[in-house]
């Protein structure tokens, strides 16, 4: 019983120290915001978001970005609110256990008008590992004016065939080069995607070689 009590006390202490450290960290970064009104608004937004389960880091980063870009207090507040909203939408789409990295990538994707259904499809295909990189590549492709449906289909296909992170990011860069050279984004993705797929084993072979590639129920 004594042992249990000591463990609880120790755990409570660790949590208290961690919370204090997080709060101190928050305070330190808040001091980078010189304008009193903006600092107060950011503090309130952070407090509210933390109580709703949204981590401080991405919101603080958004606030600091706004400060660096000399945005108005109103704009910073609106951007933080939108980010929090996208964070919640991403959490639903990437359920059940998304990581903070995935949620951050998901929020970026939603801001770029990637549909939630595309995030759900990615999660369905890889429920047991982080898909932050794949979401990021999908966001890049949409930002490069590839139609979201076509972009998510290509990313899903490449994921199914076990394309590496390096191959996926190379695809995105290659599409950019082709678009700059005058190719339509859809055609560039199609050509470059096929090029990468030609180097990968077909989906059935992947499943045979690596049974864990089958999505977990």
């Amino acid at each position, binding site marked *: 019983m004594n042992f249990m009590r000591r463990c609880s006390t120790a755990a409570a202490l660790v949590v208290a120290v961690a919370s204090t450290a997080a709060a101190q960290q928050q305070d330190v970064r808040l001091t980078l915001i010189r304008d009193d009104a903006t600092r107060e608004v950011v503090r309130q937004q952070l407090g509210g978001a933390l109580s709703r389960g949204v981590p401080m880091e991405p919101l603080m980063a958004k606030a*600091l970005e706004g400060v660096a870009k000399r945005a108005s207090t109103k704009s910073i507040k609106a951007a933080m609110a939108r980010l929090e909203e996208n964070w919640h939408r991403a959490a639903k789409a990437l359920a059940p256990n998304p990581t903070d990295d995935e949620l951050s990538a998901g929020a*970026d994707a939603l*801001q770029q008008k990637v549909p939630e259904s595309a995030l759900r499809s990615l999660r369905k295909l890889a429920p047991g590992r982080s898909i932050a*990189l794949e979401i990021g590549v999908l966001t890049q492709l949409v930002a490069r004016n590839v139609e979201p449906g076509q972009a998510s289909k290509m990313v899903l296909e490449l994921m199914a065939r076990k394309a590496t992170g*390096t191959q996926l990011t190379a695809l995105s860069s290659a599409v950019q080069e082709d678009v700059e050279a005058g190719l339509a984004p859809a055609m560039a993705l199609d050509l470059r995607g096929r090029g990468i797929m030609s180097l990968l084993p077909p989906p059935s072979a992947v499943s045979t070689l690596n049974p864990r590639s089958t999505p977990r129920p």
Partner: protein
Amino acid sequence: MTPRFAAWVVFLGGLLTAPVAGRAQSPQELRVEAGAAELQQLGRDIRTATLLNVSWQRTETRFASMFSAGATWARDSMAALQSVAALVWRPSTESRFATEAGATGAIFGLSNIGRGGNASTYLRQRVRFGAGGVWGGGGFGSSVRDAAVSHGTGVDMGGWGRIGALQGSMMIARYRTDDWPLFEAARIYLNRDAASYDVNDATVALHYERGDLTLDASQSWRNGTRTTDVTQSALFGALAWKLSPRYAVTVSGGRQLADPVRGAPDARILSAALRYTWATVRESDDEYGASSYVRMVPTDGGGTVVIHVTAPEAAIVTVAGSFSGWEPIQLRRVSDGWEAERVLKPGRYRIAVKVDNGPWRSPGNLAKMKDEFGGQNGLIIIP
């Protein structure tokens, strides 16, 4: 008899004395300035006038064009109009050389030397060296006043440079004209009868931008030659305070010496105006005639990211991003532009670059995302 009154438009001063760099703040920019001014020609009463200036400029990779027009009205005088059109051309974005050609036109009523008009042209060749450079050029103008025609010519040369947010230029010029009434009205004494009269000028101009504040100041000195007897100096200053991205309050004042090429009289000016600026933001990487890209070199457990901005005329280039907690980092000058290098761990990073006081833009070869603050970020993924 209705008093005739000279209008003297302040914006001409920039083109006349300090072609510091001839760069545009945006690919396309329209400025409208409305306000009031107190004007005084040498030896005449002070007049209060309403002023309206409109200027437009467009910057392409190799061309920049600009047009300015201004008008003033005073209660007891006729309106006056002045306009400037100019074109700057450079052989390529990396070229040290740029050629500027322009034409000006004016209609004025001068209280001491009569009403009339002027047309002039000028040509300048600039050579850039890093954040500075030199130029040389000349102009020719004809004035008609009370049916009398006169001509003026000028040659000028100078240099410009930048240290941080401070830009400066120095110019020496020699003017020749047969417009002796203009010189006499400006108290430039004529030593003897001659076909034309000369003066020598020297001008130092400074331009400073920081945050919402822009300051301009110029000091000119004029000396006579064998045909003229004069020692004059003139100080002119202007301040612009940005109230919002589009609106600014401007205050300017000082003395401007008579211009033998454009036929403008010696005058003292004090003006205050509200300025509205409309500017386009280029979606491509070609900002201010500059280009930027990010090169990634994979390393064990991450990658080295090299941010390169080709902006040879820029004074400061900064980069900020999620990798630096959005703390702006100044790029270092390299032979053909500006560069910074960072080693990043695997992950997603948002990044933006800024040239001088321009907007935050994504480097050209990155996927561009709107940043919700009116600018852009580029998205980097390190696998």
